[in-house]
């Protein structure tokens, strides 16, 4: 039974990984990575790492993926950059050689445990109680180092991504409301369709921003005044 679950989860994880690499749209790549992370959490559960699986789903597939989706929506994906001609051929070849090499190195290492199902199960293995006990006793120093690293990363991200005076023009952020209202935006602005780069068909789009007629003749004919 566990073999069935293993193959389902493993195939799902590898499919998600291939989707991340091959999908042209960054938004779909992020969704594919979320799928991959959830199926990887199932693999963790099969390995009796309950706390790691829960942290994977909550922290990774939850929080980190939301961060990615925000940045994709901000930067605006959708444009696909073709890769270089040499790397497009050499990259997959290198990856294939690496996976063969790694498999030979790990499966042929003579470790007796590789061919077995693992150590006998101890009650409470991988539960939050055991993990927390280890984190606060034996691995206290890595725990504290990780918290300092998180603090440094948070401060660094704020410093990197803050607005700097004088670096950007005034079209972003400081636009007066009068101008912003008058420029009509397409209907998909601010929706998931825009983040995914899926543009609606041209006839659904509003064609031109509404411009007040100054001396135009076409408007006069239609309006009749």
């Amino acid at each position, binding site marked *: 039974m566990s073999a069935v679950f293993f193959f389902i989860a493993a195939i799902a994880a590898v499919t998600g990984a291939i989707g*991340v*690499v091959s999908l042209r749209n960054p938004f779909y790549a992020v969704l594919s990575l979320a799928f991959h992370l959830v199926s*990887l959490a199932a*693999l963790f559960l099969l390995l009796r*790492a309950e706390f790691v699986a829960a942290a994977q789903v909550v922290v990774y597939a939850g929080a980190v993926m939301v961060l990615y989706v925000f940045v994709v929506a901000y930067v605006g994906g959708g444009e696909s950059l073709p890769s270089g001609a040499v790397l497009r051929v050499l990259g997959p070849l290198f*990856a294939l050689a690496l996976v063969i090499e790694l498999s030979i190195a790990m499966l042929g290492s003579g470790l007796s445990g590789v061919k077995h199902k*693992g150590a006998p199960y101890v009650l409470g293995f991988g539960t939050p109680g055991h993990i927390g006990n280890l984190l606060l006793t034996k*691995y206290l120093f890595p725990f504290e180092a990780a918290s300092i690293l998180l603090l440094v990363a948070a401060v660094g991200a704020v410093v990197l991504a803050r607005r700097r005076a004088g670096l950007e023009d005034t079209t972003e952020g400081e636009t007066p409301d009068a101008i912003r209202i008058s420029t009509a935006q397409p209907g998909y602005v601010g929706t998931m369709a825009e983040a995914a780069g899926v543009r609606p068909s041209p006839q659904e789009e509003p064609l031109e921003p509404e411009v007040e007629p100054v001396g135009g003749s076409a408007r006069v004919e239609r309006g009749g005044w």
Partner: protein
Amino acid sequence: MPIGWYLVVSALIFCIGAGGVLVRRDPLVILLCLELMLNGANLALVAFARMWGGESGQIFALIVMVVAACEVTVGLGLIVAIYRRRLPVDVDELSELHG
């Protein structure tokens, strides 16, 4: 399932990520592929922890997840800064620092 199967899956995921880092040019997708590589390493760590019956590998996997979260924050901050400066979001164009 024997532990070897998990190790093969982890090697597969790691190498898919490595190939993606080489092939793709969008820095955002490169960050995603880095996540794939870290996850492959995580799966190997947890599989080895199961193999030896110790929980140290799982602790190590948790620390790797923390490091991955830090990498994501700094990397996404860089991408947002690149976008704000109106620079091209393309790793081949951003080559001012190469020797």
